[in-house]
């Protein structure tokens, strides 16, 4: 028997030639295994991301074969590295250009909370300006940790409702950040 785990099917009713399940489960499955990340790599965590994308850790096997550098075509904004106050408006603009559904993962200590740079010029965590779904601690986090963070995002994507943008919690979150 092979050791490789393949994705298990969601709960549903199976029969001869058909499989019936809830639509949002299928959509969640499809979305979570084809997330196109936008690597917003600013500093050292970016180099660990390059190692994750290399053939040893192979990020592409999770469906992220095509890292998109255009926010319009990306699902997942991976912020890797320190975000300085000068870079803040740029990051916010990139986030606003992403289309729903979009998720944000803060890789590294600097993106999560400012890291070791408690200074006047560094933003103490990107959640000051954009909502973050998963935080990956580490300085820099090992590629295994980045992959683990990505798997948590996949769990979130699988279990979310199809149109979370209509839910009241999400609307409240967006108004909190001043995003329309």
């Amino acid at each position: 028997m092979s050791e490789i785990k393949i994705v298990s099917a969601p709960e549903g009713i199976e029969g001869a030639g058909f499989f019936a399940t809830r639509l949002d489960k299928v959509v969640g499955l499809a979305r979570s295994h084809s997330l196109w990340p936008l690597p917003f790599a600013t500093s050292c965590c970016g180099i660990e991301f390059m190692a994750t994308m290399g053939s040893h850790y192979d990020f592409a096997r999770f469906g992220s074969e095509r890292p998109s550098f255009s926010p319009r075509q990306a699902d997942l904004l991976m912020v890797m590295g320190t975000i300085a106050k000068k870079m803040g408006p740029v990051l916010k603009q990139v986030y606003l250009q992403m289309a729903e559904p979009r998720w944000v993962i803060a890789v590294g200590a600097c993106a999560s909370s400012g890291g070791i740079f408690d200074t006047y010029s560094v933003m103490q965590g990107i959640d000051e300006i954009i909502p973050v779904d998963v935080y990956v601690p580490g300085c820099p986090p090992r590629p295994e940790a980045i992959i683990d963070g990505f798997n948590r995002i996949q769990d979130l994507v699988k279990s979310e409702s199809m149109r979370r943008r209509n839910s009241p919690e999400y609307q409240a979150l967006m108004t909190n950040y001043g995003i329309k």
Partner: protein
Amino acid sequence: MAHIQLDSDSLEKETTTLNLGPTHPATHGVFQNVLEMDGERIVSAVSTIGYIHRAFEKIAEHRPYYQITPLTDRLNYCSSPINNFGWHLTVEKLLNIETPKRVDYMRIIIMELARISDHLICNGILGVDTGAFTGFLYLMQERENIYEIYEEICGARLTTNFGRVGGFERDFNDIAILKTKKFLATFPKIMKSFEELFNRNRIFIDRTVGVGAISAEKALNYGFTGPCLRATGIDYDVRTANPYSSYNEFDFEIPVGTNGDTYDRYMVRNEEIWQSLRLIEQALAKMEKEPKGIFHADVPAYYLPEKQDVYANMEALIYHFKIVMGEVDMPKGELYHAVEGGNGELGFYLISEGGRSPYRLHFRRPCFIIYQAFAEIAKGSLLSDAIVTMSSLNVIAGELDA
């Protein structure tokens, strides 16, 4: 930057502004270039940096000397051991500590591995920018081997926080030596296959020869050091000009180019990788001749004692407490020490007034000084040439902004 009026016989009447913004797949780091384009040709370029300014020099004035080592890691993060050892060498110069020979040889092994690691990223990414992804994958796999050697000795992969003032925190164990020897045995083959992909590749040569050329006089005036300067023909290397850590006992060459264009920078980096392999081999051989077990200088006032001594020995406990709290007596002094970083002369200008933190610490960062010249180099070239030039200057954002 307003549009520039073009000559009356040109097709466009004025230039188009193109923002090669801080987030861009081709800029390896966050720096911005606002380009004025006449079609595909760049008429002028204005660079904006500071998007990752983390105020290292300000932080250094508030931290004790050992806590500055992790800061230096994050300068040129592709070759962080060189920065770490540069800082420790500066502090050792301030304190007049002489490290044993074995420590020097161990430092050379790690520094040359870091240099190889830095050049591998630069050349791999240069290949990616010209459209060739395969070379990058080969080299990243080899960098994993270098990371394993670092991990064996200091515990971390990328931002290593290597060593102590006076030496290392632990000796190279047998696994580390074995991994280094294995690296020396297996890496040349991969490097040769990488060179076969690129060195005589018609497309690569067309993309890089004559592109982004700078003359030797201009390079000196702009303060270039490192591979970018050596590509123009000047063989200045801090390891031979002001030798540190026993580099003067070693036999290695300094590769130089002729034109100072992108192809020469690429070739100089490749040749430096081969020279670094020679240095590692010689250092391993010399290290084995030295008496075993010495991995730090005998300076208990500045070197963190071993944990078993701290729990058993009174003096060790006191030294440990003083060093961790930063209550060590540092002499007053002012010095400048330079090491050959991955990108050029990395200098540390330290003024100490005897307190627990430096009074002033300034990093002379090669990437910052080299990147000034980009606006002039890019003028008149095509946009795709500018991308390749930027990539071959090897600008690391951490070192650019500090």
